[in-house]
């Protein structure tokens, strides 16, 4: 165990002393600050009468509902319920120009963070083969499984660090730009068919957490390809291609019943919470988690077998 932690320490030393990793961190911070500045100085003046907005939006939603079915209809109903709760309890929607509004919007950074983590996962094993340094790792009294696990843990740690940086960075940026005010503004969400008020921090953490599931799966795919084919470009290219093409594949396959067994139908768990909707009909949270775990186990097994069995 002690040896394992020292290996993780080694992997972190190698990763965070790379110029490319430092550039990723700078890009992330730069993106947050840029978006914040644009929101503050370049956005249109928001309408002050939020009640009128919510009312007209609700009317539009109801109209849409009359010709919608399935998951989409359920999602619309939840949005309508939230809007009505807003009006009844006098809770305005979060402004983009508020600390929590900005922090909430910045959860979109998870797309960039996922891509960065894929890039790290795709290079962390194959890079050692490319440079020949794999020999330094595998001629030491440590099992190959331990070496591989230390790298995997480091990938997830990097993803987690980026996410934490994004959360803290966007909250601070939001505070500096829009003032550390209205900190107890509640988020409205639907839980068990009822609208509930939620602490904003809990809400934002939940968004990051659900996106992190997707990050883990995509990083694991890149990691598996990196271990099996020892080729960084292939690992990064294939994984990002799959991530981008996944939704398209879903649309093409939507009419088949077995589409729910496709990985991409189960990646976005946020549909099961709040006012979201699952991408495919007939899914449940339990089913999606089961499918994800099966895929996950297969990816891990392929990467592990390839790394521990093959000649170097």
């Amino acid at each position: 165990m002690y040896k394992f932690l020292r290996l993780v320490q080694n992997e972190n030393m190698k990763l965070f002393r790379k110029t490319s990793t430092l550039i990723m961190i700078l890009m992330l911070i730069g993106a947050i600050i840029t978006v914040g500045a644009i929101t503050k100085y370049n956005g249109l003046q928001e309408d002050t009468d939020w009640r009128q907005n919510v009312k007209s939006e609700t009317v539009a939603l109801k109209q849409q509902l009359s010709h919608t079915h399935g998951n989409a209809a359920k999602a619309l109903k939840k949005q309508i319920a939230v809007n009505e709760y807003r009006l009844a309890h006098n809770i305005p929607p979060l402004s983009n120009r508020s600390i929590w509004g900005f922090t909430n919007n910045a959860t979109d950074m998870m797309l960039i963070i996922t891509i960065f983590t894929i890039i790290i996962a795709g290079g962390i094993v194959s890079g050692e083969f490319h440079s020949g340094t794999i020999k330094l790792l595998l001629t030491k009294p440590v099992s190959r499984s331990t070496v591989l696990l230390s790298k995997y843990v480091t990938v997830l740690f990097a993803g987690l660090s980026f996410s934490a940086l994004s959360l803290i960075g966007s909250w601070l940026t939001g505070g500096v730009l829009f003032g550390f005010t209205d900190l107890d503004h509640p988020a409205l969400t639907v839980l068990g068919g009822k609208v509930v008020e939620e602490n904003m921090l809990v809400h934002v953490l939940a968004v990051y957490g659900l996106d992190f599931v997707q990050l883990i799966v995509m990083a694991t795919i890149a990691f598996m390809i990196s271990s099996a084919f020892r080729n960084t470009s292939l690992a990064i290219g294939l994984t990002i291609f799959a991530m981008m093409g996944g939704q398209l594949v879903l649309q093409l396959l939507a009419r088949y019943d077995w589409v729910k067994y496709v990985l991409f139908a189960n990646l976005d768990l946020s549909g099961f919470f709040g006012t979201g909707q699952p991408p495919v009909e007939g899914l449940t949270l339990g089913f999606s988690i089961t499918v994800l775990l099966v895929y996950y186990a297969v990816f891990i097994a392929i990467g592990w077998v390839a790394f521990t069995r093959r000649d170097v």
Partner: protein
Amino acid sequence: MVQPAIQLKNVKKTIGKKTIIHGLTFDIQPGEVFGFLGPNGAGKTTTIRMICGLMKMTEGDIYIFGHSIKTEFKRAIQHLGAIVENPEFYNHLSGYRNLVHAARMVSGVTKERIDEVVRLVGLQHRIHDKVKTYSLGMRQRLGLAQALLHRPKILILDEPTNGLDPAGIIEIRKYIRRLAEKEGLAIIVSSHLLSEIERMCDRIGIIQNGRLIDVQTVNEFVNADAEMTVHFIVDPVDLAIEVLKSTTGQQPARTGDQLQLSLEREAIPGIVEILVNAGIKLYGITTQKKSLEEKFLEVTGGQQIV
């Protein structure tokens, strides 16, 4: 009898349908420098990769102080320090951090020990520079430091003199002899440079096309056949040729006023006497043992060494 440091027992390696190593069997004793000699593509690196556990063998087994590299990998490998092929490092880290990286993977390496090996290989002035600024010779030295860090009892160096200048080669040779003689390490040095291996090894194994053709001590190897090449500087040359031809039955090779013959040591005084008695002026005699290289060519049937 002492336990051998390394034992190879009928080690075979087949990749696809091609057999690269055809059943190697040999032992290496503690304190011995073993030269692993063969032309490019003979299978030296493949054998070393199997000893280090990087490649699995198709058949046979390798024991390091009695521990099988197959079934007791960690216990076997801890006795071993190696540079396999080129000394490769994390170029974006300093030499020192590369050593810290290596130290974290083994047990019992202190900061003092790191400083000690850095001094041993004479890198103290550049150790905090990034490895990407190092010359090949410095990388080779850092490789040695990395391999020696955990005080292994066996050191494996795959073509350590490759690409080094003469001073670097002499330095590596010095380290190898010192480690074997003072610290009792068993050392395997592979090379296709015969003249190099002849000067640093106690015993040489010749490998060709994945087969061990011959294992001999360096002394045996060079002295196995006492015949040597003898050069005579004489005047008049033509007369000397005739005399030598009639006494030895060989046609001497001529270069200017030098004549060259292949003779046994014992025959030299007799020949000198005959030449002097025939009135030939003898300005000098030099003898030259056959180099290992010539021997090697004989053993391997004259195959070209690249």
